[in-house]
């Protein structure tokens, strides 16, 4: 009998647990909430409000956020802003589990490529037109950056940075001078000139590459180079017929990338994401030219001051007349659909992203380029270059940035398919045709 009672109790407990969990998930949205359904924020008042903000761990980014929050709190003494930070992988997992459960913070730092996957689940609040209308956003923000924040013709959040991983590369001018290249700062007219210089910068001992002439085989650099070159050769990888890279432009792009290896600029076996990652490798001077965005500068500025003094960004040559490149929609701020403090949250988001002085302050602190066109042109551009000279070559090409396109899972496409398949090819393990076929098939499967 006792067995029976214990068994019955366990069954009841399981059912009860399921019901409890069901209750906990009752906020899991079925449809994106309309403005009317979203928790109505109270009118701004002097009532104390505490905003929780989630960001990923990046000291430079978070210093920038703290500066803005301090300025906002000084203007709004009734508002307290608390930051909660997570390391990158944990942040992705936390967002994925907390948003459906409705336990997230009021404001969420979000990478543009992720926005629509959360917005479609009804977890993010639509940007109120009074803060930033869709029309304003499309005209004021670079198209490559706003694209990720527009989901089914609705705007969710506001981007803060122009995420760029192609177009200009880090160059160690001291190593260039030692290699006898005196005019490297003037740039390269074409890829032949680039290859000639990078070849001089590569160092090989006993058949082992000890310094890469051009380290472009990080995961972001590899994917960004491949897709940007397809555009520069006049192709498109997202077509009406689906995802297509097994094309003449795709072949040319891979051939050029392989040429960098064959000409001895880089050894992809020793320089990749897992070994000698481009940021580490450049500042440790085991790479003379490195393909990575300017956000690395604040990351390494404390420990590698000496290298930084001889570091310069220089534009890469372009196949096409216009130096077109692809870019992901970068980091920005979004507001949770479950936030009870939406009005205050949007007020802070507006202050941080649309207030020119504040958003520039954040860009300078984080080493990221502005998403707002106004902040990247005219007097703002001059201010940015004066305070952060590394921006200059990027600011000249931002208008040529094209959005990478809407993928159901962009990280999967970049990091699990494009990067490993191309790296395999560059390491000599697969053929060019096989690589293009595999990328095309595997990416197509994700749609």
């Amino acid at each position, binding site marked *: 009998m006792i067995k029976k009672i214990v068994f019955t109790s366990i069954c009841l407990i399981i059912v009860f647990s399921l019901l409890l969990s069901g209750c906990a998930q009752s906020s899991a949205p079925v449809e994106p909430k309309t403005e009317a359904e979203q928790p109505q924020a109270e009118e701004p008042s002097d009532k104390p409000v505490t905003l929780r903000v989630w960001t990923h761990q990046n000291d430079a980014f978070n210093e920038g956020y703290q500066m803005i929050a301090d300025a906002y709190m000084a203007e709004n003494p009734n508002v307290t802003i608390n930051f909660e930070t997570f390391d990158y992988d944990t942040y992705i997992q936390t967002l994925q589990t907390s948003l459906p459960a409705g336990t997230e913070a009021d404001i969420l730092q979000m990478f543009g490529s992720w926005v629509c996957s959360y917005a479609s689940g009804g977890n993010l609040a639509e940007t109120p037109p009074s803060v930033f209308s869709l029309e304003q956003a499309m005209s004021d923000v670079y198209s490559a950056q706003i694209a990720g924040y527009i989901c089914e013709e609705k705007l969710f959040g506001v981007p803060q940075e122009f995420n760029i991983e192609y177009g200009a590369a880090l160059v160690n001018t001291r190593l260039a001078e030692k290699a006898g290249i005196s005019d490297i700062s003037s740039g390269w007219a074409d890829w032949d000139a680039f290859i000639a210089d990078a070849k001089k910068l590569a160092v090989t001992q006993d058949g082992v590459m000890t310094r890469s002439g051009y380290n472009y085989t990080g995961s972001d650099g590899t994917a960004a180079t491949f897709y940007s070159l397809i555009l520069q050769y006049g192709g498109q990888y997202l077509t009406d017929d689906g995802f297509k890279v097994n094309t003449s432009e795709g072949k040319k792009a891979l051939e050029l990338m392989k040429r960098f290896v064959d000409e001895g600029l880089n050894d992809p076996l020793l320089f990749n994401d897992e070994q000698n990652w481009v940021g580490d490798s450049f500042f440790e001077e*085991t790479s003379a030219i490195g393909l990575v965005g300017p956000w690395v500068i604040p990351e390494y500025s404390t420990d590698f001051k000496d290298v930084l003094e001889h570091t310069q960004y220089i534009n890469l040559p372009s196949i096409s007349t216009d130096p077109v490149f692809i870019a992901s929609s970068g980091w920005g701020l979004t507001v949770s659909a479950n936030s009870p403090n939406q009005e205050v949250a949007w007020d802070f988001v507006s202050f941080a992203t649309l207030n020119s002085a504040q958003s520039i302050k954040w860009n300078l602190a984080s080493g990221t380029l502005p998403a707002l066109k106004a902040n990247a042109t005219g007097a703002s551009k001059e201010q940015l270059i004066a305070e952060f000279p590394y921006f200059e070559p990027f600011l000249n090409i931002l208008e040529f940035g094209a959005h990478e396109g809407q993928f159901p899972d962009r990280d999967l496409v970049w990091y699990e398919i494009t990067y490993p398949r191309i790296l*395999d090819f560059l390491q000599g393990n697969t053929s060019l045709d096989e690589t293009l076929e595999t990328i095309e098939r595997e990416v197509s499967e994700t749609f």
Partner: protein
Amino acid sequence: METPHPTNKIALPDFLSRLAHGRDSAQRIFILVTVIPLILYMAFWTLFPMVWGLALAFFDYSSRRAGGAFLGLGAENPFIGLQNFIDMFNFQPDAPLQVRQFHSSLKTTLLFAFLVLPLNLSITLPLSVLIENTHERLKGVFRTFFFLPVLAPSVGVAIMWGYIYHPQRGLLNGIRTLIGGKLVATNWIGDTSLFFLGIPVALLAIIFAYLWQDLGYNLVIFIAALQNIPESIKDAARIDGVNRWQMFRHITLPLLKPTILLTSVFTMISSFQVFDIIQVITSGRPDDNVRVLVYDIFENAFRYQRMGWASAVSVVLFILVLAISIIQTRLLKTEWEY
């Protein structure tokens, strides 16, 4: 006074009434008070996740998508029955990426577990006998020496071995360079073209690091088992004139059979669950050569939010571990004790 014995036909009110009265009521209440919290704990933290995990395996579930009202199931997270399991049997070269990654993960996991087990036992068993035969004062030193890596955090161990295997700055290549007088930069972890006896060198490198950390467990268990073998049996064997090898082969080894079973099952289970060392050293790359099932589950579930698929892979892993544990138990079962 007759002791009340619960019968199969007793009604709940009667049972509750008997709980409160009678000679054994205090004992029964004590049992219930101590057992119920444990059952509740188990139900909430173990049973529910298990049932939930099993249920998800039959759904195309992603917490990113808007599901139905009940636990987010249904709607955009539809019930798909056995489809996840059917997909696992798609061995076509153009099978979806997640299926091919599952196949390579399964192969790598089996290879890892079936290499680790014999290697571990073939090192720890003789080593424990050697340590047991050393001077009494040295035994403690050796035990501590070999057990220390077990106490080290796995992530720290993985980072350390990552440095050892680094192509340019690594200790291993450094020693080879020193000996050969020529710069060597073998990429032990990243070179997918390196194989030894058909096994990826990257996997062997991981196994070596894993063994280094894991040996201490089995070693300590074997030493404890060796100390429990009655001296009288050994004395009897000595009187019969057995030499050291015969003693080990015919006395020690058979008597250690239950311990070998225990360590085999534990080692096999922990090998199937290997994750942290692979995550830190390789991130599952290169070319999925070192991608194991737990890493595959982690990536699918938490990186790409394919919870349904990840749950189905978890079910396969569970069945695999259960089956292998049962087989091991049957094969190494003994009918006697000493």
